[in-house]
């Protein structure tokens, strides 16, 4: 059944998170160094970086534009407001102009029609042109007429008088008109004064006219309506325009040229505020989008990367435990399926290889077992044969010795010599049989060592004594050299057998020469060892023959067996015995110039009791 995508995703997420938790015995995959965590951390780092870049861009590039537009807009409005204020002022000036350049006014000022002010500056007339006060002055500065709309009375209030006669409005001799803003008692006025002249502009001026218009809330409302802004007049322009609701200000000068009035344009900084809000909302959306993308990414990664990796792991584990598993049935991406395929192929190869290997090992094991059985049988046979041979040989030798004794008693010298040959032959045969028995024992691991404290110097001299007759036979000089002979704990009998073998060999292959037996201490791997050396000036051994010298039944040259006698077992047995004692035998030889055989072994057996060592010392 196919689920809809979102449902499927949800179900998958729940399942996979559940599986992970159960699998790892941990609630969150984010606590561990998982693939998913790594990817999401990378994504988060990247997102934060991009967010930083975005914020920086907005702050440095977009936001200044908003504030610039805001400023420009404020300026534009301030300018508009100032323009309107000036226009208002201009209208008062214009009115003053109209009344000043008028023949009737001129004549009135010259003493004509005394009804002129009452006819033209009635309350209703002035209200029509929105003038609050009018003052007519003659050239000497005497006020001929004054009207104040406040209360509709004739004659100016003190305030209006002070304004209308203020030095700022006084016309100099060469001035025709003056106008501007004026302040008095906390109120602001448009004030305009004009020299009264004849309509055609001829003749001397006849005093002046002053128009005052109070800038009250009505005027401000009109200006605000015209400028399409909310305005406020302030009489202390130096005060800082800090209030949040002031968008801009313009300073206006009065007729004295002093900056006395400030027009504040009220209202919020709409553009900047809107811009800021827009940018923040935009950022919020971006962050939300990134978070959303992150979650989606986690889900997708879980489904398409982590899931398949776990599936692959399950597959591998299943194959490992010998269960059947078919990875191609999972809904994994092609790469993972390819990986699984490669693994399957490798695994199959490996299995085949291992099976082959197992077969080989089995074969080798059975071959080895067979070889061991055969060797054991050989050893047993040799041991039995030797034992069985030895008893009759012993009899032969004993009887021969008896016969020799009898012949000696009877003085039959020829018989003594003949029987002596039998004795020699049987001794040789016994030696051979004993060597075979020894060798088979060593090979069967049945050789036991009988340790005791041994004086090696004495042992060497003893061996020399034993081989002296042989040396005399071959006219060899026998030398024993004992240099600081150590006393050692070893198997005396077997060591003697070894040295005897070497000494007898050396003499056997040396005639009219020198055989030197030497004893010396040595150190090997920090342990005390001894070294027994047998050096001869005999025929030597070829390099090729040295290879098989220590193998059983292999004299250097097979013809030597016939020529020199010997069993061919002596060196093999010597090697086995000295190795059983933990030592080794080595040799050097120059064909035709002599050989040196060296026996070396530890002075104390491995794991020897200290008491025994003490005794040895």
């Amino acid at each position, binding site marked *: 059944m196919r689920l809809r995508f979102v449902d499927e995703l949800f179900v998958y997420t729940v399942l996979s998170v559940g599986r992970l938790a159960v699998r790892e015995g941990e609630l969150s995959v984010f606590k561990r160094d998982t693939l998913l965590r790594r990817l999401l951390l990378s994504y988060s780092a990247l997102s934060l970086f991009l967010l930083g870049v975005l914020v920086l861009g907005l702050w440095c590039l977009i936001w200044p534009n908003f504030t610039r537009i805001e400023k420009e807009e404020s300026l534009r409005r301030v300018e508009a407001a100032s323009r309107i204020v000036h226009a208002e002022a201009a209208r008062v000036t214009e009115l003053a102009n109209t009344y000043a350049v008028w023949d009737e006014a001129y004549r009135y000022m010259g003493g004509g029609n005394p009804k002129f002010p009452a006819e033209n500056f009635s309350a209703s007339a002035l209200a029509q042109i929105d003038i609050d006060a009018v003052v007519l002055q003659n050239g000497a500065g005497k006020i001929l007429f004054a009207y104040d709309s406040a209360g509709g009375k004739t004659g100016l209030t003190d305030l209006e008088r002070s304004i209308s006669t203020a030095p700022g409005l006084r016309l100099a001799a060469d001035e025709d008109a003056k106008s501007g803003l004026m302040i008095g008692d906390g109120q602001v006025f448009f004030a305009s004064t004009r020299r009264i002249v004849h309509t055609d502009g001829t003749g001397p001026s006849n005093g002046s006219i002053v128009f005052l218009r109070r800038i009250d809330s009505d005027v401000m409302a009109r200006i605000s309506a015209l400028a399409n802004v909310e305005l406020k007049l302030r009489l202390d322009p130096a005060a800082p325009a800090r209030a949040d609701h002031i968008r801009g200000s313009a300073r206006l000068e009065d007729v004295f040229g002093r900056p006395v009035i400030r027009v504040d344009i009220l209202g919020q900084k709409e553009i900047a505020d809107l811009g800021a809000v827009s940018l923040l909302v935009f950022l919020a959306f971006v962050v939300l989008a990134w978070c959303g993308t992150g979650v989606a990414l986690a889900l997708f990664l879980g489904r398409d990367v982590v899931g398949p990796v776990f599936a692959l792991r399950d597959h591998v584990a299943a194959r490992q435990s010998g269960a059947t598993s078919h990875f191609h049935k999972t809904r994994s991406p092609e790469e993972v399926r390819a990986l699984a395929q490669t693994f399957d192929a490798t695994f199959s190869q490996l299995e085949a290889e291992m099976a082959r290997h197992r077969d080989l090992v089995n074969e080798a094991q059975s071959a080895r077992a067979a070889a061991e059985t055969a060797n054991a049988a050989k050893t047993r046979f040799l041991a039995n044969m030797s034992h069985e041979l030895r008893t009759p040989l*012993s*009899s032969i030798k*004993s009887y021969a010795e008896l016969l020799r*004794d009898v012949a000696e008693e009877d003085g039959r010298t020829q018989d003594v010599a003949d029987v002596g040959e039998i004795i020699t032959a049987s001794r040789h045969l016994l030696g051979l049989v004993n060597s075979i028995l020894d060798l088979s024992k060593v090979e069967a691991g049945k050789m036991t060592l009988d340790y005791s404290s041994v004086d090696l110097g004495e042992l060497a001299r003893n061996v020399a004594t034993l081989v002296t007759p042989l040396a005399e036979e071959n006219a060899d000089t026998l030398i024993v050299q004992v240099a600081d002979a150590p006393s050692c704990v070893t198997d005396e009998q077997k060591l003697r057998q070894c040295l005897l073998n070497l000494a007898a060999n050396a003499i056997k292959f040396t005639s009219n020469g020198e055989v030197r037996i030497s004893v010396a201490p040595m150190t090997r791997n920090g342990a005390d060892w001894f070294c027994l050396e047998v050096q001869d000036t005999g025929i030597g051994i070829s390099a090729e023959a040295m290879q098989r010298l220590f193998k059983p039944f292999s004299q250097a040259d097979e013809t030597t067996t016939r020529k020199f006698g010997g069993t061919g077992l002596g060196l093999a047995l010597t090697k086995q015995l000295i190795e059983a004692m933990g030592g080794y035998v080595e040799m050097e030889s120059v064909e035709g110039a002599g050989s040196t055989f060296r026996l070396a072994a530890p002075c104390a057996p491995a794991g020897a009791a200290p008491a025994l060592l003490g005794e040895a010392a």
Partner: protein
Amino acid sequence: MSIKILLAEDHDSNRAVLKRRLERKGYAVVDAENGAVAVERFKEQAPDIVLLDISMPVMDGLEAQRIMRDASANPAIRYVALTAHAMAEMRAQCEAAGFDAFLTKPIEFDDLIEVIERLCGANADAAA
């Protein structure tokens, strides 16, 4: 008085030749073909020295020696073990059992004479 030797050895010709050679040296020799016979002869003949082959049929040398030692109150009787070639463990076993000497076969006759003289000869008596 000549030294009386009890020789226990299962191999007939070896026993015979050894007996003859010892007798030629002037010793009185009583022989036995196994441990059981040797014990009997021991009781009858009261030898000065017993040469015992260790591996014999019917009763082996070790067993025979133990019975002899138990049967006789005479501490002067010497026991010599004759064993197969170079068996170190056997040597230790023999020494523990109270044998006075130990010889490995094939026996060098001169060595045997030397051992007998050392254990039972005039010098040995003097030492005892």
